[in-house]
């Protein structure tokens, strides 16, 4: 893992290795070139997945981020190498008001369905995609479910009844082995 990380750092200065995952942050204008370079020179031919994160300060589900962030979409792809199983994630940021990015379909064939899913869940527009249409949701569904501003109606109507922690955690006994509680 270390030597592969050093090799990546030669080409991309912005690479970080945290929690055993290498992450390369790039600009959205270089999206296609970076992927071509990773596929051809570093032999990362296995396209694992593509997805997005919605960074926002006002959330209607879950908890808001602890430090305030500037609202944006972060698009992440994950590539790997079958012979040595090296793994790399590539991320970029695009703005929320104009979510456009080039499609990766000319570099990897497998990006087809992943990009359709990101379009449907977040509303991100992928240029040059052959058929950008809905994958999961029924026809006539309005809204993009994964946005932080999309509410879960059932939770608004009736809060979850099980807010109480019913079972205690196991405690240490005298011999130091964990017993059940």
């Amino acid at each position, binding site marked *: 893992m270390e030597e592969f990380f050093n090799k990546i750092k030669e080409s991309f200065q912005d690479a970080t290795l945290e929690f055993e995952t290498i992450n390369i942050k790039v600009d959205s204008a270089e999206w296609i070139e970076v992927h071509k370079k990773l596929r051809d020179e570093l032999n990362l031919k296995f396209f694992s997945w593509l997805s997005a994160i919605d960074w926002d300060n006002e959330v209607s589900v879950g908890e808001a981020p602890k430090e305030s962030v500037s609202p944006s979409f972060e698009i992440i792809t994950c590539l790997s190498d079958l012979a040595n199983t090296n793994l790399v994630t590539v991320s970029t940021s695009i703005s929320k008001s104009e979510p456009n990015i080039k499609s990766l379909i000319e570099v990897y064939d497998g990006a087809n369905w992943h990009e359709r899913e990101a379009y449907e869940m977040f509303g991100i527009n992928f240029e040059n995609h052959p058929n950008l249409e809905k994958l*999961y*949701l*029924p026809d006539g569904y309005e809204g993009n*479910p994964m946005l932080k501003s*999309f509410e*879960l*109606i*059932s*939770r608004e109507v009736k809060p*979850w009844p099980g807010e109480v922690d019913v079972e205690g955690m196991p405690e240490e006994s005298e011999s130091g082995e964990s017993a059940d509680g």
Partner: protein
Amino acid sequence: MGVVDKFGLPKPISSVFNWARSYSLWYFQFGLACCAIEVMAVSGPRHDFMRLGIIPLPASPRQADFMIVAGTVTDKMAPSVKRLYDQMPEPKYVISMGSCSNSGGPYWDSYSVTKGVDQLIPVDVYVPGCPPRPEALQEGIILLQKKIRGEDMKEKWLEVQTEPI
């Protein structure tokens, strides 16, 4: 069957009919999710439901007596469930298996799950569990058989005629 509407069937004849009906149920395969694997296990050699009389498994709703809805019903699948239920000929019954089809289950707050199949079709027996053990499903089938045996033919036919299609 105008005779049955007006006079009703005498007890011995209707009990013979009901007994015959309850022991030769044909069920329509409607396995959607994890509970379908439990239905397959119930039909396997260890817990065997063929001894209860459910021998062939017709894949077509036109030949079936009852339907086991096993698994999560999503909003996209809901029109198909209703359409298949309507295609089954009378008398028909529905067993709702598992907590997803009883009331939404662990996905009760999801944006694309129907909260219970009884919002679409009338259910006769609810089998709880996630997934229910094969023995629990067998108990559900036996309860359904008891219900069939206690039915009155006249009321069942009259109910059909007054129900909107």
